């Protein structure tokens, strides 16, 4: 990368120190366009959905202010809680599996003990470039017990594997698709973080007689804690937003994937099939708040752990 000398030592999550003594409005000339579009596509919709969530369309009286009634309804909405439960289960199983595999691969790459490391790194990352639609269609075809790979295996081995698209297994099947899409991406984040760990740390640990496993747990993992936390937060947000994969699988598994399968599917169905825009906005806000709280907790816990 760049080899130019730089006054800034390292980037950090807090705003960087002021570099120019003169405060002026000139920077706004460069930042202005971003902020204007940001206000239009981020801030305005958030404000608008808060507004929507306080009203309700009634047959008599039209659009009326109902205060927090929509929120009260959401808190007692079994469909919503069932959907939230489903993505929570998904999160509890899929995220650790995916991040675990990604971390193991990153450690293997970083150990320098692999043959053909660059080939591994690029190939395992490739699924990230595949659209969720294509990934889901592909796996959907392969899951088929009649025509798909699962069917082929059944025929070839004379076994009868359970249908991956049955109601019992469909969540696991979706988990597999998401894992396939993002293992390589997370691996790359971990691997890049591992590359920055100074080698002198490993050497010091070795001189102290630490084995490889000990080097990993005592030196490498604490050193990449930031990357682990960030990847976990993104995965939590991704799990709570789950929509594409179940939505695309629906024609293949109409009995297993309902329209209220995830909170996002539910929000979408409320808005576009049910025309309940106000209530839909409320559910979206509740979901956004839950996501932010959990992301925040992960961050607090992650930063406290270890050193």
């Amino acid at each position: 990368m760049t080899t130019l000398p730089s006054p800034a030592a390292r980037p950090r999550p807090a705003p960087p120190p002021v570099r120019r003594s003169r405060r002026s409005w000139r920077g706004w000339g460069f930042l202005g366009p971003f902020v204007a579009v940001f206000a239009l596509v981020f801030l305005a919709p958030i404000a608008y959905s808060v507004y929507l969530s306080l009203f309700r369309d009634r047959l008599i009286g039209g659009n009326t202010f109902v205060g927090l009634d929509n929120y009260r309804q959401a808190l007692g909405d079994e469909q919503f809680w069932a959907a939230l439960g489903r993505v929570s289960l998904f999160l509890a199983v899929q995220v650790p599996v995916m991040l675990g595999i990604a971390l193991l691969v990153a450690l293997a790459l970083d150990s320098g003990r692999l043959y053909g490391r660059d080939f591994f790194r690029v190939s395992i990352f490739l699924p990230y470039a595949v659209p969720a639609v294509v990934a889901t269609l592909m796996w959907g075809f392969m899951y088929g017990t009649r025509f798909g790979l699962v069917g082929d295996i059944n025929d070839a081995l004379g076994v009868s594997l359970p249908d991956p698209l049955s109601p019992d297994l469909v969540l696991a099947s979706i988990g597999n698709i998401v894992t396939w899409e993002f293992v390589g991406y997370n691996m790359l984040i971990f691997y890049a973080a591992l590359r920055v760990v100074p080698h002198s740390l490993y050497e010091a640990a070795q001189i102290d007689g630490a084995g490889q496993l000990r080097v990993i747990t005592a030196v490498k993992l604490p050193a990449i804690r930031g990357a682990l936390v960030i990847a976990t937060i993104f995965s939590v947000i991704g799990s709570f937003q789950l929509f594409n994969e179940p939505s695309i699988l629906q024609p293949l598994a109409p009995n297993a994937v309902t329209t209220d399968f995830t909170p996002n599917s539910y929000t979408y169905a409320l808005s576009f099939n049910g025309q309940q825009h106000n209530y839909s906005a409320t559910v979206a806000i509740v979901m956004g708040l839950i996501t932010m709280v959990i992301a925040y907790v992960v961050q607090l816990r992650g930063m406290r752990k270890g050193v």
Partner: protein
Amino acid sequence: MPPPAATVFDRSPAAPSGGAGPAPRLRAPRHRYSADRPRRSVLLTVLTGLVLLYSLVPLIWLVLGATKTQQGLSRSFGLWFDGDFALWDNIGQTFTYDDGVFTRWLLNTVLYVGLGAGGATVLAVLGGYALAKFDFPGRRAVFAVVIGAVAVPGTALAVPTFLMFSRMGLTNTPWAVIVPSLISPFGLYLMWVFATEAVPAELMEAARIDGAGEVRTFLTVALPLLAPGIVTVLLFTMVATWNNYFLPLVMLKDPDWYPLTLGLNSWNAQAATAGGEAVFHLVVTGSLITVLPLIAAFLLLQKYWRSGLAAGSVKE
């Protein structure tokens, strides 16, 4: 889907391509393992190979599937060729089926990616440069709000954005897909971190003393230094827009404006509708055509992302 990459350039002193460290070093005989010159392990390679297989088998299935007729897809083994080699025929059919609507979807996607990802990159570069190199009123507030926005689920915004856009008469037009794609909080963050290190304040001062205005300083001094960061942001915003499904699904009704992702999904779903023709061989071939440009971009631009995309908060 998780938001696009938390990416930052790795400026690690270790050479990214070499397994060996910077300086030759005597191996300590008591330790089997050395950070600089580890022994290659067959067992570890085989174990990692399992993950490699997992990653590549579906892609191999896709390539093989694109060579099969619709009957071939169901009668042949998924991971080998069918008797009939129909790849060229499938590609021809994909582009001509239903009056060549696939071509239209492809051009739509190129339009959305060109304006959406291109615009997002421009806004992120300008904004990141401003945050890194200028001090101005409201700078801290902007920083806090944008970083907070990263945690807001993108799909939660889609429905209210749709309602807003529909009042503005923008839904069912390309703008409904392009405008929301223009914001990449992470692109902004990446460019801010990158510009902080890549553009020395002294160079900017020197340009100003020479009488260059802000725009000229940016174009002639900063822009060339920011190039590697720009390519990375562009690559990841391209993936995000090329692969976008939820936003166009919400915004577009008219199949003429569909991007490839929505179009493929509609071809797949039409088999399940009454009277709909099953065109699974075209879904598979179309999927392959959709995937190839991005895979090619990632392979060709490897040197930009390979040596160092890391989470933005890795280095504290």
